[in-house]
């Protein structure tokens, strides 16, 4: 339960309210190597501790977190500069089944900040492109200014990844697509009988993505989603993240949709 001292090594302002920080151990101790989709608890001095997904390449060993400033602790996170100290506990939770997706078509769907926990998967594809079939990344954002990792889209496309972007609203100068990310799903060209999908975003968005993917023929056992619940301890002791029988911190956050989909329909569970 004791955080390990870390330090910010790199800071990138992604959007008006979102910041990416790379962190490295400040002393001899370090957390275990993470897997794509896992999260850490980040302690910001005096501001508290927050669960933040790891959004960097698990293989390169660099620990990267992208966070949107929505509360006291995440605002403190976004204010950190290079060299600043923070505490890290982790990594926690289940991970995207990237290894099982090898040899298959892969659909990655992100809504807003939901792209952050999926980026380690995209990194894996970029670094091992030959191991996967057709790979699509569908990205939804509120406005063009809210798009995450925009500078990397070209790199992804260069690795034969089908990157498609859509926004809820845009100024007149936007030449891209406007609409829901779910509307992109019917146009996917994948081998749905074997493909895997990994989806992260608001619950309602994930539900409708699962529905559209099912319509394509993709079984709910191969559609993976991540759940978000209140977390204080991240080790199944504080009770806050309960979602039916699960503790999202250790039984999740990544789940096959077949497991959590029915529960998502129960209001206020």
């Amino acid at each position, binding site marked *: 339960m004791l955080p390990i001292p870390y330090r910010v090594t790199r800071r990138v302002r992604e959007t008006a309210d979102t910041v990416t920080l790379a962190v490295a151990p400040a002393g001899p101790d370090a957390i275990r190597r993470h897997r794509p989709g896992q999260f850490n608890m980040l302690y910001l001095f005096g501001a508290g501790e927050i669960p933040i997904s790891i959004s960097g390449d698990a293989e390169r060993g660099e620990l990267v977190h992208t966070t949107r400033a929505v509360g006291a602790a995440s605002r403190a996170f976004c204010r950190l500069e290079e060299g600043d100290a923070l505490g890290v506990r982790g990594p926690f939770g289940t991970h995207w089944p990237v290894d099982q997706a090898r040899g298959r078509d892969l659909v990655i769907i992100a809504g807003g900040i939901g792209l952050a926990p999926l980026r380690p998967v995209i990194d894996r594809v970029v670094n091992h492109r030959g191991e996967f079939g057709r790979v699509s990344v569908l990205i939804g954002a509120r406005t063009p200014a809210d798009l995450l990792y925009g500078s990397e889209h070209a790199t992804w496309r260069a690795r034969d990844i089908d990157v498609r972007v859509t926004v809820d609203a845009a100024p007149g100068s936007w030449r891209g697509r406007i609409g829901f990310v779910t509307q992109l799903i019917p146009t996917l060209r994948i081998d749905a009988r074997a493909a895997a999908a990994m989806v992260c975003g608001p619950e309602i968005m994930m539900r409708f993505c699962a529905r559209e993917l099912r319509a394509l023929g993709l079984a709910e056992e191969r559609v993976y989603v991540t759940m978000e619940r209140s977390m204080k301890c991240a080790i199944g002791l*504080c009770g806050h993240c309960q979602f039916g*029988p699960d503790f999202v911190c250790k039984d999740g956050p990544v789940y096959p949709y077949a497991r959590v989909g029915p529960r998502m329909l129960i209001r206020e569970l």
Partner: protein
Amino acid sequence: MGVDATRTLEQAAVIDREGLALLLTGLRDDGYTLVGPTARDGAIVLDELDGIDDLPAGWTDRQEAASYRLERRDDDALFGYVVGPHSFKRYLHPPRVKLWQVRRRDDGMEFSRGGAAAPRYAFLGVRACDLAAMRVQDRVMIGQDARDPIYAERREGAFLISVHCTEARSTCFCASMGAGPVADAGFDLALTEVLGERDGEPRHEFVITAGTPRGQEALRRLPSRPAGARELEAARAGHERARGQMGRRLATEGVRALLRDNPESPQWDDVATRCLSCGNCTLVCPTCFCSTVEDTVDLKGEHAERWRSWDSCFTGEFSYIHGGVVRPSTRARYRQWLTHKLSTWFDQFGTSGCVGCGRCVTWCPVGIDLRAEVAAIRRRADADEPARATSSTPDAGSDA
């Protein structure tokens, strides 16, 4: 668990009031911090005790849904009451405890574990339901991959003196949960208080059994005699009296599936019209384990501490994530509490989360009785009342 009194009484001894006093003094001399029942603020509460004189001699309790009263007994029984608002949870899983502290220096942060070492506790008056509750909390706090070191330290050192119940209240239903009224394992020593007359002389004795080698050792140091048929009979009669006085049963058959399969039962709406969402039930429950954390910082901004305190799933903040509260309604909060206790607890920890102590019934300000709620949910499910079926919720609607 806790049903066959005969076996535990086989090697029983008898001690008198003086013997009990010596036991308590001896434990304190051995360095234990003695915690047990005492009468205070109109209730039998748990506190640190100096010795036998701090016990609630001659007091009893009257308990019903939403009601608790202390009354004088017409004898000097030391354990003539059942469970009060406190459970030993407050010592094993303290209501507020420091997890760690951090010092900010020029070259970074330095974290260190919180607080002083815990006392070595001797718990007196652990009823069968509370012993069962400890076993339930053991699974939660130290039975998983992640162990809570604070609980582990307190639990592993604790010396447990059980008291088998010889009375029960209408709020009691430990027998339904297989938890009591007699504990048959998990204690170091167990007592049954026997009051009566023999040859015209009033007698006040305790039939005592040891459950562990260190319990045997403690018993050996006391003046005692082997229990005779008479004392054993009196003890058994007491246990039977408790069993007989027990309140309505909680029908446990199929309750796990019942609550899992009825998240939209109209009964949740019904109970929500009565429930105040005050959280009393979670605070008096001996198995509820949820906690939150709080950070404090000194004025210079150099030293911060992280404290853990009990939390309740009945608060709005409990389920808060940015953008809103997952369970804004009382309906959802009561459903979460009861479903967790009697159903999903099995999925998580392989046991029920309820031991039948009845505290949540007594201390609910509006007298909600979970036994009645379960029965009502079952009735409605059996009658197949039109529920808000899950299949008619949004997924059938239009596109996102």
